[in-house]
Structures are given as structure tokens and as C-alpha cells.
């Protein structure tokens, strides 16, 4: 017998609700629980540590009042955004390049996906061996006669300019974006672009009026995922970053690993701040995208 609750919602039958139930429970208990816990703890609720001053915004006030937080936020945003933008530009060109027929396309079209399937730590190892002061690029610079001492090679790793961090993100995420864009280009076909060319449109016009609107949804979803990931990424800035100021995830981890366990609440405030900033930026991004879609008449 269906219970009255299900009868009030005729659109979903009991069996369908049962289908959604396991997933819903896991996502609400685990993911929702984690988010709720982070929020509660950042607001002073941690009875298991003997602390309960909920609701208490002092952790946020202490955090946001210090300059180090804003420096960390700046570097977190800078690494995330720079990497996303660079990867996107390269990925669009790659996806467009792969639509052209040339010898060996099948092989190259598979090889570029390699970073997508390996852990970030492998990318970090590659950055260390390529970009370190004793690394391969530095040796090549010597071979070309540009430098004659490793110290003359520009510092690319463990610097706040973050070349290493950004290189790893770009290396890992470029294939992800290119895959999304390329899939759209393949399924959309070339008829529209060819028709426009016949009608006298030049390359720039074709890209702006036809190709770009086709690939924008893929661009938005893949850049969102990559940007959000970069905001919360830990290992690349931990190993390749400047050290101080750390990015926000590294800062949160340091608070959590401090011998003074009460700093965990401060760490949770950092974590919630990452979520707030990322959430706000994503909301603005999506709103802008909606407006764009509306201007095209697609929504």
C-alpha cells in the first residue's frame, strides 16, 4: 500500500521514489551533512572539542580581519583563474584544430587525453623535473647558451607567481575542456559554418556567429568545474606554491593539523570562505551566461 505522502504527489510513483532514495540519502547525509557540519563548526559549534558558542561569527571576523587571509585569497583566485583562462584558450584552439583532417590525427587526438587520466601528483612530478632550477628546461637553456649556471634560470617553482601550479592545472585541465568542446563541434557538424562561408562570411565572423554559440555551453560547464576544483585544490599549491602566503586550502589544512585543536574552527571558517567566494563567483558567472543565452533567444 502506498503511504499517503506518495499519493499527494501523483507524478512520482512509489517505485520511482524508491529508485531515487538510495542516491538521495547518500547525497543528503554525506554531502549535505558535510556542508552543514562545515558551516556549523565555522560558526562555533564543536561540542566534541568542548567548544560550543554557536552562533558565533568571531572566527570569520578574526579571519577576514587579517591581511594574510586576503593575500591567500588573492593567490587562490589568481592561480585558479589564470589556469582556467589559459587552459580554455588553448583548449578551444585544440578542439578547432582537431576538426581538421590531417595525417596522424587519430593518434594525436588520443594522446592529448593522457593528462586527463593520471593523478595531479604525476603532473606535479613532471613540473618538478621540467621547471625546477636543475630541471630539463634549465638544462636546455644551458645547451642553447642562454645561461651558464642553474641559479640564472628564472625561479618557476615555489614562487608566488605560481608558474608551476598554473602549468600543472593547465596541463591537467586542457584535455578536459578540449574534450567537452570537441564533442560539441563533432555533433554540431560543419553545415552551418559551410553555409555561412558560402554566403560570404569570413573566418572571424564564422567563429563569432556560429562556432562560438555552439561551444559556449560546453565551455561554461567545463570551466566551472575546473575553476571550482582549482579553488579547492591542495597538492599542487602545497608542493609548487610560494609557501607564504599559502592558498586557502593549504591554510585550512595547516589549521587542522595544528597541535592546538581549537584552531580547527578557524580552519572551518577558511573552508567555508572558499565555498562562499567560489559560490559567489560561480553565481555571477552563471547569471552572465544566462543573460547571454537570453540574448541569443535560446532560453
Amino acid at each position: 500500500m502506498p503511504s499517503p505522502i506518495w499519493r499527494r504527489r501523483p507524478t512520482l510513483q512509489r517505485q520511482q521514489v524508491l529508485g531515487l532514495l538510495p542516491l538521495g540519502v547518500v547525497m543528503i547525509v554525506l554531502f549535505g551533512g558535510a556542508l552543514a557540519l562545515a558551516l556549523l563548526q565555522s560558526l562555533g559549534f564543536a561540542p566534541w572539542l568542548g567548544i560550543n558558542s554557536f552562533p558565533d561569527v568571531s572566527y570569520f571576523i578574526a579571519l577576514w580581519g587579517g591581511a594574510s587571509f586576503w593575500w591567500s585569497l588573492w593567490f587562490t583566485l589568481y592561480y585558479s583563474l589564470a589556469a582556467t583562462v589559459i587552459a580554455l584558450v588553448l583548449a578551444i584552439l585544440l578542439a578547432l584544430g582537431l576538426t581538421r583532417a590531417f595525417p596522424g590525427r587519430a593518434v594525436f587526438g588520443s594522446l592529448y587525453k593522457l593528462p586527463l587520466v593520471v593523478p595531479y601528483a604525476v603532473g606535479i612530478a613532471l613540473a618538478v623535473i621540467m621547471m625546477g632550477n636543475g630541471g630539463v628546461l634549465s638544462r636546455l637553456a644551458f645547451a642553447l647558451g642562454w645561461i651558464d649556471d642553474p641559479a640564472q634560470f628564472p625561479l618557476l617553482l615555489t614562487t608566488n607567481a605560481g608558474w608551476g601550479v598554473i602549468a600543472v592545472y593547465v596541463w591537467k585541465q586542457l584535455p578536459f575542456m578540449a574534450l567537452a568542446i570537441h564533442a560539441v563541434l563533432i555533433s554540431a557538424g560543419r553545415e552551418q559554418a559551410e553555409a555561412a562561408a558560402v554566403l560570404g562570411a569570413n573566418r572571424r565572423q564564422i567563429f563569432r556567429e556560429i562556432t562560438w554559440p555552439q561551444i559556449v555551453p560546453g565551455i561554461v560547464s567545463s570551466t566551472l568545474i575546473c575553476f571550482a576544483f582549482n579553488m579547492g585544490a591542495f597538492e599542487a599549491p602545497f608542493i609548487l606554491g610560494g609557501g607564504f602566503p599559502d592558498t586557502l586550502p593549504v591554510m585550512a589544512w595547516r589549521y587542522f593539523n595544528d597541535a592546538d585543536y581549537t584552531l580547527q574552527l578557524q580552519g572551518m571558517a577558511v573552508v567555508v570562505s572558499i565555498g562562499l567566494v567560489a559560490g559567489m563567483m560561480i553565481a555571477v558567472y552563471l547569471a552572465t551566461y544566462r543573460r547571454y543565452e537570453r540574448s541569443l533567444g535560446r532560453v
Partner: protein
Amino acid sequence: MARSQASPHAARFYVVLIVLFMVGPFVPLLVQSFAFQWDWPNLLPSEWWFTARDRARLPLGWDYVLSPYSRLGEAVLNTVLIGSATTLICLAICLPAARVLAREDFAGKRAFEFYLSMPLIVPEAAVGLALSVMFVRVGLAGSYAGIIIAHLIPTIPYMVRMLTAVYQGLDRGFEEQARVLGASRSQALRLVTIPMLLPGILAGCLFTFLVSTNLFLLTFLLGQGKIITLPTLLFAKISGGSLDASAAGIALVATLPGIVLLLISERYLNGLNQLTGR
């Protein structure tokens, strides 16, 4: 038509350049894994590992990597074990849900779908640190169960998405026809629906396994150093910011599962394209 797109030569040049950026650095990594002495500014090592191995008192390079000291075997085993368990559980909870999401329309469906994709946009550090607090309270920290449960969060969005797309591509008429012709519900599922869904399910499983084996932060935070996987082992090896021969070897081994899965997907599954299939 020549005016509408870049020339094939320019396109090829660019694609090759990008592939060089993607794959090229693996060459020095491979060289480093076989090196014993590789001083700046030599482009190749002055002494290789295999000529020095007899003199060394401790296992060098690949000898170390393949010895029990490196804990590599343990890490590989854990990675595969956690990845497989995560994939199976993820499939079991996502498959029934994907069926409903693909076929039914209901109040709050869009909100639910958005919620399901939220792990993709909530920073991993936030989820990981909160889960580690939660799991310490319930005794799941540092256990396989804890890591596997945590791995469900980042894998669910992909699995649901891919399986929903699979169900959308499946005409429910086949299933109904089987029922009309006298098949029981379980027969229709077993003999009609599952075989038709199988390629898509395999693609979803493959990608879920891949995401799980590449996860670092959740494993690192919840394994508490007791349970190591390939990404956490490699992280520990290179966290000092330098890379010796054995670290290079471990990095290469950590690349292997991805290469195998990429080959499988390129050969049989239309090359990860389902990932973005919507």
C-alpha cells in the same frame, strides 16, 4: 572553403605542439627513473642505475620501487580495491536513480539534478575536511569503508550524468514490448534492458574508477596515513619538491592505470566522449 578554417598544416602544427606539452615531459621522467647520476647541465645521466646497482648497499631506482620498502604493491592494491568498491557501490545507487531521472518528470527535479552536480563545484577541501571531522566522530576515519564512502561524493555526479544519458538514449518501447510478449519484469531487465545499456554502463564504471583512482585529497585526509594509494604515495614522495629516481619510477607506475583505461576507452568506448555526453 579554404577561408573558413585554419589550414590543415597550421592545425596539425598546433595539435602536435599541444601533444608535445602533454606527453613530452614523460621522456625525462622515464630517463630520471633509470638515472643514478644526472648532474646539471647534462641532458642525459652520466651514470645509469643498472651500472651502479652492484655497488649500492641499498636498493636503487627500480630495485627500490619494486621492493617492499617502497610500499608500491600495497598502494596499487589499495587503489584498485578502493576504486572497484567505489565503482560498484556508485553504480548500484546511481542506476535506479538515473532510470527515474531519464524517464520521469516530477516537482523539484531540476533542483535535485542541480544538487547532484554540486560536488563538482564545491571545493574538495571543504568536503574533505568536514568529512574527516565527521568520520572521526563515527569511527570511519582511517578505514577502507570511510575512504570508499567519501569517494562516492566526487564520483556520483559523473556516474549519474552518464547513466541518465544512457537511459535517455534507450527507447523504453523495447522494454514494454518484451513485457507485452510475456516477459516478467526481471526477464525484461535481464534480457532486454541490461544488454542495451551495457556499453554505457561500462563507460560510466570506467570513468568512475578513473576518478576514484586519481583522487588525492579525500584519500589523504580520510586515510590518515594508514591507507595509502598511488596518488598519496606519490605525493609523500615528492612533497619535498624534489624528484629522485625512485620517485620518478613511482610516478610512472601511477600513470599506468590511466594509460590502460585510456586505451580501453579509445578502443571500445568511443574515447571518453560519453563523459560530456548530454
